[in-house]
């Protein structure tokens, strides 16, 4: 009986809304962080470390400020949903912006 109550604990449309809002946050912050990395002239591993450090800060902010410390209320698999799953997509966005800004500032006359 515990199984069914687990399944019905989450209202699916709201969970999807939450996931969409989370992905929007991640996209916008990755653009900001990517611009910073490009302008600062970070290259190679520095750029990825910068990304991960910011990722940790932003995830902590989301968990403690937006979710008020209880991510399982808003997302199904709490911690992984917030910080683990969107990582790769955000990384791709970050690489795009980072490359673009770096080129605009340092490569073009």
């Amino acid at each position: 009986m515990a199984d069914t109550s687990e399944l019905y604990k989450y209202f699916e449309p709201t969970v999807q809304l939450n996931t969409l809002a989370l992905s929007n946050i991640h996209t916008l912050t990755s653009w900001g962080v990517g611009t910073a990395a490009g302008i600062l002239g970070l290259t190679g591993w520095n750029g990825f470390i910068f990304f991960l450090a910011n990722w940790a800060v932003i995830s902590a902010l989301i968990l403690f400020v937006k979710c008020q410390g209880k991510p399982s209320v808003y997302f199904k698999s709490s911690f992984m949903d917030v910080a683990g799953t969107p990582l790769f997509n955000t990384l791709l966005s970050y690489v795009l912006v980072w490359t673009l800004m770096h080129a605009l500032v340092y490569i073009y006359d």
Partner: protein
Amino acid sequence: MSGLAESTEQVMFLDPAIRNWVLFPITVIMVLVGVFRHQLTILMTGEPPKPDIRDIRQAKALIRGQILAQSNSYIPLASFNERKKFLCSAFEEGVYLKNKNAKDQSPVNLMADPKNMEVMMDGMKKQMMGIVPQTLIMGWIQFFFSGFILIKLPFPLGLRFKQMLQSGIMTPNMDVKWVSSLSWYFINLFGLRGVFSLILGGENSADGIRDMTAMGSMGAMGQQSGQPQDYNKLFMAMKDNLSIVYHEWDLANIEQRVFVKYGKQSRVFTSAAK
């Protein structure tokens, strides 16, 4: 000479005209084409076909059999047997089948069913919407923007990528970081997904990668949907399944179990006849 190792950083500056006429246009065009595709897909997607009540009844009858088999412990033996008898006889006679006359015939070809035809055509149209613009853009980029360096990647890549990313330029010594326009296309392809989800909302059809993965699975899916579900066989299988289910009621001998739990009786005495 000090022992400092000089980094072999190749410093180059590129003409700002490249930036204005190649870098920005490629990105802008990809965004616009993505939005265009999304809107076009919305226009082209027909209404989903209304399901026939017989189809639904068929599927639900099968589910009912499954539920009975799974939840057999929640009902006493007599109720379970009654339900089992009813369902088995119904399956046997084909009460729930869509068309009883076709019970003994070989399965009808799925292509002849007009409803399914529409669904398949919709799916194929969506695939086309995904693949065609991507191929077009790639061809356009390779035709117009080949033969020169566009951008420098801030991160290093292995030497194997040199051939792919510097496709038009024959220089053996240039760093892999300096790449041609095609690689900018790929970077955009992966990175613009976030932008699309911002502009177009969550479910958007402007995602390039989803089309690539869909292309891979399209082959497998096409073959599987060619066979219609033969419900007669499924019903027979479910009937066999039900007849071998071992029924055990959760509340069997519950009174004695309570006594044993509270120490009023030493052990449960199961009677011979249930």
